């Protein structure tokens, strides 16, 4: 039961929120309570899987593969926990920063359904169930994106909706084809059965459609267009939620299906992933350096950083594919991807929250319109500096370790080109982060158009940001535990037999049912 909680709690919260439509306070309380308990549940799960056990839950008591199974391995548990952290931070921020109309009509329940869907996607062990969570996530995000109905929101939403639905259709077709070819939807079962196909190239063909679909959701090259077109249009709390979680679900799905199911032609797929990773990094960062709005810069950077995550994956599976055995270097590279994802989720969501704080303080996030915040808002500036330097991979923050593990893995694996590209991109990231810093925070302060925030608003807006900053510092200083976690998760990911055994082992199903 435990591992269904991160999905059920926010669902329950969302359903209850609907009863309080039009009243923001009870909804806010419900949202905070739900995300907080969701976080507690995910941390509990994380502790449960910390030693390498994989928890499973067969819904309805139907033995896999006949029903739907939830599986929490380390990677999944880490992702769910991060989802809950971002959720809690965003809800707290919303209490301070949301306008009353949005807060009373839809913002909270939809954020909760989004969180439920994200958790579901991280935990499910069933391909079609993944589709359902994807759709719930998408539809929640559509509504959140358009909530308020401003022109920019609607325009962005049309692009976002169209391209993501295109991706969903491809995903659905891929599911149909996979079921028609292999006869099952349970991912562990698929992993077993797909090896029976006469030709491994057939499996790769099935993977291709799936990867294109996930690639669109992940915002990889050349599919990322929907992201910079829309992420900066909704209220900052929504942007933060999106930036932290949505594309990462796509990346998660890519990692999951590649590491678990389609391991027939890993060396080829590894190369493909690396090429995509490189192009994603470069196009994303080049887009970022020419923008003049904080939130647009950050949006393009999401794209570029998706490339880093794919880089770790590509190196790892390419290495295992060509060497045959699971090498420590492959585990290292994979752990780089895992580390990068969890660093990125925290820092990116936080940067969007900070841009939100800038927005409600000054009324704009345009680099040309906002200046000199370091003088008028030294605390906010410090928080931005920490987060942005973490994003740029500056020690001693979390981003440095993520970058270090990836670069080290890449160099050890001999993937020099991608390492070179990633370092160049990292320099440009530093360039654009300092561009924000030198223009928004340095310079002569402007006369603020908006009235100063009251104490209560300030507390709600600043505390989640400060909390996430502390988190990135803690990950940086206590890098050992994070690195260990990432390494263990990576090892588990690359050895798919553990996942498969856990799903089909009745004993572990018991563990899942009664933790």
């Amino acid at each position, binding site marked *: 039961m435990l591992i269904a909680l991160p999905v059920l709690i926010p669902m329950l919260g969302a359903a209850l929120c609907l009863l309080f439509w039009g009243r923001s306070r009870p909804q806010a309380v419900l949202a905070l309570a739900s995300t907080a308990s969701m976080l507690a549940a995910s941390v509990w799960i994380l502790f449960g899987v910390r030693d390498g056990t994989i928890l499973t839950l067969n819904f309805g008591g139907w033995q896999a593969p006949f029903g739907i199974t939830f599986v929490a391995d380390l990677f999944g548990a880490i992702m769910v926990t991060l989802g809950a952290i971002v959720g809690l931070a965003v809800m707290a921020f919303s209490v301070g920063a949301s306008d009353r109309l949005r807060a009373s009509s839809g913002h909270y329940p939809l954020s909760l359904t989004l969180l439920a869907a994200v958790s579901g996607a991280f935990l499910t062990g069933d391909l079609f169930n993944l589709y359902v969570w994807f759709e719930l996530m998408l539809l929640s995000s559509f509504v959140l994106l358009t909530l308020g109905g401003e022109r920019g929101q609607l325009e962005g939403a049309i692009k976002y909706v169209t391209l993501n639905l295109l991706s969903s259709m491809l995903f659905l077709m891929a599911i149909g084809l996979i079921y028609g070819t292999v006869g099952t939807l349970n991912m562990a079962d698929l992993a077993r059965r797909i090896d029976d196909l006469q030709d491994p190239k057939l499996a790769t063909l099935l993977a291709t459609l799936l990867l294109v679909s996930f690639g669109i959701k992940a915002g990889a090259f*050349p599919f990322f267009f929907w992201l910079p077109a829309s992420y900066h249009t909704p209220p900052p709390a929504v942007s933060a939620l999106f930036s932290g979680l949505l594309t990462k679900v796509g990346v998660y799905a890519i990692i999951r299906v590649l590491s678990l199911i389609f391991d027939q032609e890993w060396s080829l797929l590894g190369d493909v992933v690396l090429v995509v990773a490189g192009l994603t990094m470069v196009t994303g960062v080049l887009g970022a350096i020419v923008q003049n709005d904080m939130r647009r810069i950050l949006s393009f950077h999401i794209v570029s950083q998706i490339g880093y995550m794919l880089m770790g994956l590509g190196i790892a599976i390419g290495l295992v594919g060509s060497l045959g055995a699971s090498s420590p270097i492959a585990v290292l590279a994979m752990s780089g991807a895992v580390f990068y994802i969890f660093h990125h989720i925290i820092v990116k969501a936080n940067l969007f929250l900070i841009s939100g704080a800038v927005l409600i303080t000054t009324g704009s996030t345009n680099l040309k319109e906002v200046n000199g915040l370091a003088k008028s808002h*030294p605390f906010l500036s410090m928080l931005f500096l920490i987060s942005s330097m973490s994003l740029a991979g500056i020690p001693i923050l979390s981003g440095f370790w993520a970058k270090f593990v990836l670069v080290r893995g890449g160099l050890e694996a001999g993937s020099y080109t991608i390492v070179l590209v990633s370092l160049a991109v990292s320099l440009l990231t530093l360039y654009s982060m300092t561009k924000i810093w030198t223009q928004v925070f340095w310079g002569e302060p402007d006369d603020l158009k908006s009235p100063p925030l009251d104490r209560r608003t300030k507390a709600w807006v600043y505390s989640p940001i400060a909390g996430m900053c502390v988190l990135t510092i803690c990950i940086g200083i206590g890098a050992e535990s994070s690195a260990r976690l990432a390494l263990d998760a990576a090892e588990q990911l690359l050895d798919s037999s553990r996942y498969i055994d856990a799903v089909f082992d009745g004993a572990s199903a018991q563990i899942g049912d009664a933790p």
Partner: protein
Amino acid sequence: MHTTVLILLLLAALAPMGVRVIGKSAGLIIATVSLAITGWYASRFGIVTAGAPILETMSWVPSLGVGVEFLLDGLSLTFALLICGIGGLVLLYTSSYLGDSPGLGRFYATLLTFMASMLGLVLANNLIVMFIFWELTSITSFLLIGFDFHRESARRCAWQALVVTGLGGLCLLAGIILLAIASGGSTGPEFAIRELDPGAILDSPLAGASVILTLIGCFSKSAIVPFHFWLPNAMEAPSPVSALLHSATMVKAGVYLIARLEPTLNEQRFWSDSLVAFGATTMLLGAALATRHVAFKKLLAYSTVSSLGILVMLIGLGAYAAAATYLIAHALFKACLFLVAGTATHIAGTKDTEAIGHLGRSMKISRWSALLGGLSLAGVAPFIGFAGKELTIKSGLNAGGLEAILLAIAIGLAAALTVFASIQVAFKPFFMPGPHKPEHAQEATWPEWLGPIILATLGLVLGLAPFLGMVPLVESFGASLAGAPLADDVTLGLGYLLWPPSIPLGISVLAVVIGIGLFMGRSPYRSLLAKTFAWDRFGPERTYDRLVGTTLASAQVLTNALQNGSLRSYTRIIVLTATACVALATLRIDAVASYLPSFGALTPFDVMLALTIAASAVSATMIRSRLGAIAALSGIGFAIAVYFVLHGAPDLAGTQFAVETLIVIIFVLVTHRLPRFARYTTNLSRSIDIVIALGLGSVVTTLTLLAMGSTVASPVSDFQAAEAVPSAYGRNVINVILVDYRAIDTLGEVFVLAVAAIGVFTLLTIRPSREAEATR
């Protein structure tokens, strides 16, 4: 040693509050702590110089091979003393110099963080830990250069310095990881600097790349050609920063790392040669560029560039004792001169050394600091700078052959230009007339003059009596670089250097004479130099600007092309890519045909349905009226529903009918006031789109056929059908799947529906105008 770094960090965290509570005298406390730490390191002097390095270990990230291992040997001790000692004096100086600045707390915090990082950098015995501190010094340097962030030039220069050193940092990261991999061989990378294996590195194919990348990193940090341009620009920082970071310590980080890796890498082919070549070039260029400027700090900055070149060159030449002597000498006199320059600029109200006259009449103490420091810079006996210069010339001559002659000329020339520069900066404004004579000028307060005079005096004392710690420190420093005790005795005593007269002494004297001569004739010399400004546009700074410009321009072009705002272009790219990927993956399969299903018997119903679907689909795209298109669309839906009825899925059919009807109703309700379908597109673009669409369509068909052709032994649904009645008590298997086997899917589905309904509701009821009202 860990404690000292932590104390500084703690102090950094407390500084802003401290300044708020007790005002600028907080600086005195901070300076005292820093000097106390210097005292602690000084107390380790005896142990370290006796040849027993101190090692402190602490575990940090063992799974990645990173441990905080601090090593105190001659090299790191020298640096630690300079960092904390000069740091303490600079902090003291700051308490007066920036005493009235509102950013004083921030300044202390950043400066202390810098000191902690710099200390960590030189103590760390782990490449990664060293790198971590390295990057932290870059960041703190960035923040300090931009301290006066309301000035546009300060922001720009800070940014430039960060990008240049950031570029170097990334190269360095790759370089040291490669180094560790090369050293570790098959056992995994070796990050502990003392454990690096020169032999293994020599054998590794990665060695070349790693050396080049590491050198780029060191050169960019230490402002070696072609990265030297950022340092003079960094003079936007307040003077204490220039004194501490940009002359005495941070810019020497590159030199430090080169020195640290010298025992490991000196066998490498390019290592020594590149050090000598780049070092000598930088030395000469820096000295020459210094004479082009008359502003205090600009001039000193270029002179620093020159000195950094000398240091790099000396390590390359293997002249470790000379490097140690020069390094210490330079830190003392340059920090002193920067501090004096800061005070002088404040008091005189201008930074133009040519304009200021007889400043020494009012700055009765600082003028002596300037004079002593300047003499040391010029390399005049008996100052420590003299010993440094003598040893440098001697090492150049020791290179032998043509190289020796070239080096001797270069060093001599640089020395002469440096003499010129030191007169210009340390003598001219204080003791010679000039058009700008500040009225009522007064000597600065004691914290401002105390530091420089101590540093200047130290330069004199150590020059006169090198046995007072200087010799053992230099020996121990040299031993760290050589990896063994130095073979030759270190001779710093004036007696040895001045008698018997030698070629170095001759060159030295000549340099002083030429330098004085140049200064006397400085106006024709300057007009000659003015012509060289034209060459600047080929210089590295312009190259940097062009590089940034080109990157931005191409990024703009690329982003314009990709993120062009047209959804249709996005869809096209995505569909084409998807089609291409799937097509390629299909073509790879051998004997695709064997997977295709056999063409079974056709029932007339199937044919009719298929034709209906096809005809409706095509007409949906062609019909010009909206209602017609909707009708065609629902035609497809109903045809599919009929197909479901015929093929064993009545539930599905019912749902499909119902949903199709609802969609039509909503469509008609909502869209009846939308404009008619307009024909916006040209025939050409329509044709292109048809081709793209057919491409995807044929891929879908192929995949469908492939999947239909493969038979599945026992799909999971066999079990679901078999157990529906016995275990799930339901006879409608589809419904049993929906509410029992896969109930969680259905739960997700009803949530999707709920969200969609809320979406429709909010879209229609929440309007921007109303939202604006609501926020009021």
